[in-house]
């Protein structure tokens, strides 16, 4: 295939297939940023006013506890000017196994979070550099990965490959979505396959592990980034704590499966404070893209 046809195909795909891109501008006071939270740090029980929380990026000033964020809050803190072009927003789950009560759970989750699925994917700029960004929402059915989440992650990775943009994914998930049975397990294979394509094309892939990341997501794309960052004290593991305690019949230490533990064992590149995340990501993108041009 000639280069021209390939270019034309890529243009055609972005122009007609990835449409519609929905542009979000997340600014202060956006209604999606209003999330009901207890005004108290769950770790040290310090009282925190909403203003205090917001100015500290939802990190407890006393004990450095990082609160869980919604995708919109992440976008606000990550994307330039809060501008985010969402794609594949119309991909949704349905109930392939006829699993009882699954539809109801989906509907309540959609209502509660205002999201369609447990991940939001799109394109944005981080300090001026274009990236594909995916943010998982633990609020949506525990961030579980069903067919729709798997498909959105896969498409995000492939979009990065097509547009030659680095891909950043913020993970937060309880694992595979059991209601979709074996199909949810196969999403691990699908997303990993896309990650292998990305590697083949030498497109940078960065992961930010946030609290909590476990199960099937840990055992697939969350561990396949070129660089794996983590927020402080985020729970990162494969098997659940209670399952392990049931197997070994004893209590586990406090710091078990926290990101500090994972860094000590060699599975996390760096633990980054929330206020430094944007800067760190921008640095990573800069050091991974166009390196050949700079050094030629």
């Amino acid at each position, binding site marked *: 295939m000639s280069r021209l046809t390939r270019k034309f195909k890529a243009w055609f795909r972005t122009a007609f297939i990835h449409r519609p891109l929905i542009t979000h501008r997340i600014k202060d006071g956006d209604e999606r940023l209003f999330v009901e939270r207890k005004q108290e740090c769950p770790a040290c029980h310090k009282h925190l006013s909403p203003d205090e929380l917001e100015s500290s990026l939802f990190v407890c000033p006393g004990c450095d506890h990082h609160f869980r964020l919604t995708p919109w809050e992440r976008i606000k803190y990550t994307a330039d000017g809060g501008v985010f072009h969402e794609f594949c927003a119309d991909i949704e789950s349905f109930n392939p196994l006829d699993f009882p009560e699954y539809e109801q759970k989906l509907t309540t989750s959609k209502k509660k979070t205002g999201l369609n699925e447990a991940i939001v994917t799109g394109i944005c700029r981080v300090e001026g550099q274009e990236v594909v960004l995916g943010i998982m929402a633990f609020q949506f059915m525990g961030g579980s990965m069903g067919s729709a989440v798997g498909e959105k992650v896969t498409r995000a990775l492939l979009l990065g490959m097509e547009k030659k943009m680095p891909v950043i994914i913020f993970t937060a998930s309880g694992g595979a979505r059991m209601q979709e049975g074996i199909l949810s397990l196969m999403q691990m294979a699908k997303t990993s396959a896309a990650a292998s*394509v990305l590697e083949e094309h030498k497109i940078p892939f960065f992961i930010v592990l946030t609290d909590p990341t476990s199960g099937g997501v840990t055992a697939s*794309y969350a561990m396949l980034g070129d660089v794996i960052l983590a927020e402080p004290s985020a729970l990162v593991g494969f098997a659940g704590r209670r399952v392990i305690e049931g197997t070994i019949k004893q209590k586990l230490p406090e710091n078990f499966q926290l990101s500090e533990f994972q860094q000590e064992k060699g599975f996390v590149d760096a633990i980054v404070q929330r206020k430094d995340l944007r800067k760190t990501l921008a640095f990573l993108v800069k050091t991974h893209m166009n390196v050949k041009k700079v050094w030629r």
Partner: protein
Amino acid sequence: MTEKEIIKRLTELRSLAQKHKLDISEEIKQLEAKLVNGNSSQDATWKKVELARHNDRPTTLDYIDIIFDDFLELHGDRSFSDDPAMIGGIALLNDKPVTIIGQQKGRNLKENVMRNSGMALPDGYRKALRLVRQAEKYGRPVISFVDTQGAYPGVSAEERGIGEAIARNLKEFFSVRVPIVVIIIGQGGSGGALGIGIGDYVIMLENAIYSVISPEGCASILLRDASKAKYAASIMKLTARDLLRFEIIDTIISEPTGGAHQNPEVTAAKIKLELVKVLNKLISRPQEQLVKNRYEKYRRMGVFIEKNAKKKSGFLKRFLRKE
């Protein structure tokens, strides 16, 4: 469905099949099974779960003994240890070399302790990957036997990165340039099974099961009642027939009445027949095609709704086919 209805439907189907010369033996078999196993499919599914976990069910080494000649087991992941729950090695299949990987359960209590009930550690998955890469280097096809209730959920596994080990296997298996054939012989438990379960062709034994979580786990987490495992098993769609319908597996190998352990030789012979047939087909494909097909096979998996998806004409679809 009551018994009467089943019989009525059966006669209907049979006459239809004769009239139009249709092949609906599957459906007929299913209905007959319903008659034998009692009305509820719940019992039938649970019977399969029990058979898949049966103590006498042939294990990976049993099948290797019967199917292959001259098996040499290779040990160790070259970085930490050798995991007895995951075995691997080189063998001859009709005088042609192949690499075998697979989980191994113990065949008696003592061996089962040593084998950790077939629950592999990260070391096991890394050993499997090492052997697969070795097979690729020397052009040997890979045959993977899946039989595990899952990866080992323990402290040692977490410390050595079980998540990373499985994830890396998933990714690397997609770039292996030799054929990989997967056979699910017993329990296919979640990520632990998938960690060596990526292949160009996936075979499943009739009474094997393959699921994202054990029925007990599903019952206690989603139904909040561990005693409902039987019901959970029936709604999880974990039998070979369900998986074939979802196109997760490619073929089912039937077992002797009462399960594979009633006659391991017959089951093994059927596996061998299928293996030889499939490998001959796969080995003739160019390597690029093999990798591409494997990717496309898994790319298609999953069902979801896409509201604004544009309907593309046949020509455009073909033109825009990517990856």
